């Protein structure tokens, strides 16, 4: 049944259809205003689900799409789906509002922008609210495509096209791997429904396909969520308009991979490989992203690497949260804290990263550059933007009293707890987790400080800027202000999130831990006492400050990494080498020479046939039924063979033609000795007519006739022609030596007179028994003659035109 929920999911697609019409007929109003009501209404609609999900209920509606293949568009709302749906619609509303002020009505093709954006929004809602894996995949790919379209929004720029192509290639490769994973899951479980799979999860954890499935799906999740080493597309995707970067590449689309990991945790998380892959890749990405963010000079570049790093952090927490499954129940189970932290940071990241992107957009809009080497001293000129930047960056760095501090503390707790786990080699290598996490946090602190103080601190360099900077209009500031106030609200009152969205979402990620009627209790508070985590944070601030102040001195370590060892370089060379290699391979065999193609065809033909003949043991030589060979036949065979050999040594075309005639006439004589008068007659006349035709042709092709050269001897050609002859001979002998069935020849002599009234059996077969063949053979003749007519006449006409 098609419910309101289904309508809510695909409503953005319907509105997207109307957008160009609105754009055309209301040119005075910014199209964004029409679009704005969609995410707001959807946000309000999804808010209404909160009481339901926080009581542990889920909402489930099935719409049959392709029922015969088990594909239903099942809308499924639970804690996790709702959390993401609220994020998508909430941030979506703010981004649309921001884009109204950011994108100029006069200069930009707004109809395209909002169509793509709405497409993306609908697809993203579909991803997070579908229970059916294939439907999820369809929406997943629509997010890839709409992201591609949005990155290349300014398609006249080279870099936009490059970034769009790169992101599409990487995410689609991952998406495709994910599809394979989904199909393997279907093979194991017989259903596409995630919830049904989760209920029968114990049946297939030992299945042989379990690990390959997991790897395929994780590849999809990692590429989409820009995990190491697939993170390279995200910095290049920064060529998109800033609202797009804020929406897709920080708050929503890149979290699709995280959603997938969280959603499929109940299926895979019990295995040790999952833990190591998810947590390991997450923590590597966290470090690599934060480490590289420091070397960026472009504000959006910093934010891109920062997003990469924060996504890694969320993912590592989700991975560690899987450890909770190895304990029974939720009492004294410290590892469930990691899942809570992941979800909490997910929300926090969406708020502060969204506002930071909008802040960068404002700076870019008002000064004309995003390069931190040219910016500085904007603090007094743009005080509101500066406030936003400070709060967002400090939250990102994990400083109190903002929400980033809380999630960073919870993150450290989770990482410290990992080291004490006893299974899966965690007791030996697990200690790496808190160490790497701490180092990465130091770098996070450094780039967060860079973001604020390189942009707003220091001296104002008016000469470097394209415009005279001033504070942005209020409308543009509105969205980041809303987001930044959320940063503060969530910082002071984190538990309003805990009860409403985090606990139900945890119930979706770790369903097996809950007994009937139980629900998770998440209580986030500021003061833990003097714990290890607090000292770690203090260390981060201390070392981070020192390193930030001495940045100039140690920045040269980045140049220690050779450029040709980077992943971007690897990607670029893979693309260019791949292209040139395939061009080379194609050029190697597609030479354009018919002779070469003939060689391939004939070689394949003979080798394949010979292989089949001898591998199936079909070769046979049986001389019992052979007729005696008369003297005439010997003679004719010798003449035929001689003419065939002589044709190779002919010195000019006329000689070739005459020798060809000799073999044609001797074939006709063969028909005579083999008692086939009709064939003999036809062969004689055809041979004559075709020789005449050749003569006529030659007469009119003088220049080719003059260039005639005797065929050169080539060993390769000789071998191939010998091979073909050998193959055909061997097959001929085998075929005539093997009589599997009685011939139907006995039927015709009597039937041709009794039933068709003719004595000439051959003719009766041609026109009566098998008249259908004849009908189409004369059609072949007709087409041939018309073809020749057209070829010659058309050429003449062209000449006349010239």
């Amino acid at each position: 049944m098609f419910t309101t929920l289904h309508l809510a999911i695909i409503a953005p697609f319907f509105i997207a259809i109307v957008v160009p019409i609105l754009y055309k007929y209301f040119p005075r109003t910014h199209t964004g205003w029409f679009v704005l009501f969609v995410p707001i209404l959807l946000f309000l609609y999804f808010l209404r689900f909160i009481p339901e999900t926080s009581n542990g209920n889920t909402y489930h509606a099935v719409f049959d799409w392709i029922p015969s293949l088990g594909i239903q568009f099942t809308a499924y709302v639970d804690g996790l789906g709702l959390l993401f749906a609220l994020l998508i619609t909430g941030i979506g509303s703010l981004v649309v509002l921001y884009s109204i002020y950011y994108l100029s009505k006069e200069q930009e093709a707004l109809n395209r922008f909002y169509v793509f954006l709405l497409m993306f929004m609908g697809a993203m809602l579909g991803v997070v609210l579908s229970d059916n894996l294939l439907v999820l995949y369809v929406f997943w790919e629509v997010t890839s495509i709409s992201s591609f379209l949005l990155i290349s929004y300014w398609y006249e720029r080279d870099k936009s096209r490059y970034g769009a192509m790169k992101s599409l290639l990487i995410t689609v490769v991952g998406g495709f791997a994910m599809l394979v994973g989904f199909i393997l899951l279907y093979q194991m479980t017989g259903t596409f429904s995630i919830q049904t799979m989760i209920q029968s999860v114990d049946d297939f954890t030992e299945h042989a396909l379990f690990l390959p499935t997991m790897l395929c799906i994780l590849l999809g999740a990692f590429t989409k969520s820009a995990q190491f080493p697939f993170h390279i597309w995200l910095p290049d995707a920064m060529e998109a308009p800033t609202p797009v970067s804020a929406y897709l590449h920080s708050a929503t689309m890149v979290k699709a991979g995280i959603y997938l990991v969280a959603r499929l945790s109940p299926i895979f998380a019990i295995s040790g490989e999952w833990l190591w892959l998810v947590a390991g890749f997450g923590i590597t990405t966290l470090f690599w992203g934060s480490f590289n963010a420091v070397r960026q000079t472009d504000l959006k570049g910093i934010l891109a690497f920062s997003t990469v790093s924060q996504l890694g952090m969320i993912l590592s927490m989700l991975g560690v949260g899987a450890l909770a499954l190895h304990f029974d129940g939720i009492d004294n189970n410290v590892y469930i804290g990691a899942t809570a932290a992941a979800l909490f940071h997910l929300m926090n990241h969406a708020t502060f990263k969204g506002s930071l992107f909008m802040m960068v957009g404002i700076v870019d809009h008002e000064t004309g550059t995003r390069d931190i080497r040219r910016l500085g001293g904007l603090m007094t000129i743009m005080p509101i933007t500066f406030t936003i930047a400070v709060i967002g960056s400090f939250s990102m760095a994990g400083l109190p009293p903002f929400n980033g501090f809380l999630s960073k503390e919870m993150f450290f707790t989770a990482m410290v707890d990992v080291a004490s786990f006893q299974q899966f080699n965690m007791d030996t290598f697990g200690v790496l987790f808190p160490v790497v996490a701490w180092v990465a946090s130091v770098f996070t602190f450094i780039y967060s400080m860079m973001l604020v103080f390189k942009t707003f601190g220091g001296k104002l360099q008016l000469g470097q800027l394209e415009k005279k900077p001033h504070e942005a209009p209020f409308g543009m500031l509105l969205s980041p202000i809303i987001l930044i106030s959320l940063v503060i609200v969530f910082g002071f009152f984190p538990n309003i999130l805990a009860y409403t969205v985090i606990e139900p979402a945890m119930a979706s990620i770790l369903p097996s831990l809950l007994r009937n009627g139980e629900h998770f209790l998440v209580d986030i508070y500021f003061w833990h006492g003097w714990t290890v985590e607090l000292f770690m944070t203090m260390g981060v601030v201390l070392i981070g400050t020192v390193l930030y102040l001495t940045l100039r001195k140690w920045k040269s370590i980045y140049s220690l990494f050779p450029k040709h060892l980077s992943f971007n370089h690897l990607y670029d060379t893979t693309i260019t080498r791949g292209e040139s290699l395939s061009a080379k391979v194609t050029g190697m065999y597609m030479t354009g020479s018919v002779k070469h193609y003939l060689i391939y065809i004939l070689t394949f033909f003979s080798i394949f046939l010979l292989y089949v003949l001898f591998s199936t043991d079909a070769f046979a030589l049986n001389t019992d039924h052979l007729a005696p060979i008369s003297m005439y036949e010997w003679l004719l065979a010798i003449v035929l063979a001689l003419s065939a050999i002589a044709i190779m040594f002919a010195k000019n075309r006329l000689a070739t033609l005459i020798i060809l005639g000799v073999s044609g006439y001797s074939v006709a004589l063969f028909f005579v000795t083999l008692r086939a008068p009709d064939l003999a007659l036809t062969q004689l006349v055809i041979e004559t007519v075709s020789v005449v035709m050749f003569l006529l042709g030659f007469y009119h092709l003088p220049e080719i006739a003059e260039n005639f050269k005797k065929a050169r001897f080539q060993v390769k050609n000789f071998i191939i022609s010998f091979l073909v002859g050998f193959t055909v001979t061997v097959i001929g002998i085998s075929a005539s030596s093997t009589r599997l069935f009685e011939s139907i020849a006995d039927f015709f002599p009597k039937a041709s007179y009794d039933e068709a009234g003719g004595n000439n059996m051959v003719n009766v077969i041609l026109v009566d028994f098998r008249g259908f063949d004849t009908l189409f053979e004369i059609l072949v003749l007709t087409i041939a003659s018309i073809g020749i007519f057209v070829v010659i006449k058309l050429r003449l006409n062209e000449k006349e035109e010239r």
Partner: protein
Amino acid sequence: MMKLNDIVIQTTTKFVLFIILAFSIFIFFNGHHHPGGGFIGGLMTSAAITLLLLAFDFETVKRILPIDFKILTASGMLIATLTGMGGLVFGGPFLSHTFGYVHLPFFGEVELATALLFDLGVYFVVVGSALTIIEMIGGDQ
């Protein structure tokens, strides 16, 4: 170019042509019971006209035989197809033939078969196609 005196070949052609044509028609009608039929008959007719082309030039042949060979081909196809349709009209499958013995005033007892009509189509197509091809290739200046 020197004007060649090819009176011998032209005169011979005038005689031989009719012999070949008569033979080709004989072979065509003979097909149902003896070696021959539409295909060979058609080819032989084409050979006769090709001889004419060799002895005379294209314009002369065009004047003697004012036939568009493409139309000949097309009508041959039409005859063959319509003969096939004839079977449908009488409720049989496509291309089902029938035959019967008829007493004609001049020829006496004669066997007439619808297969002959089909063969006529074949004959026309073969003559038309062969001559279209020769005319095109040979006549292309």
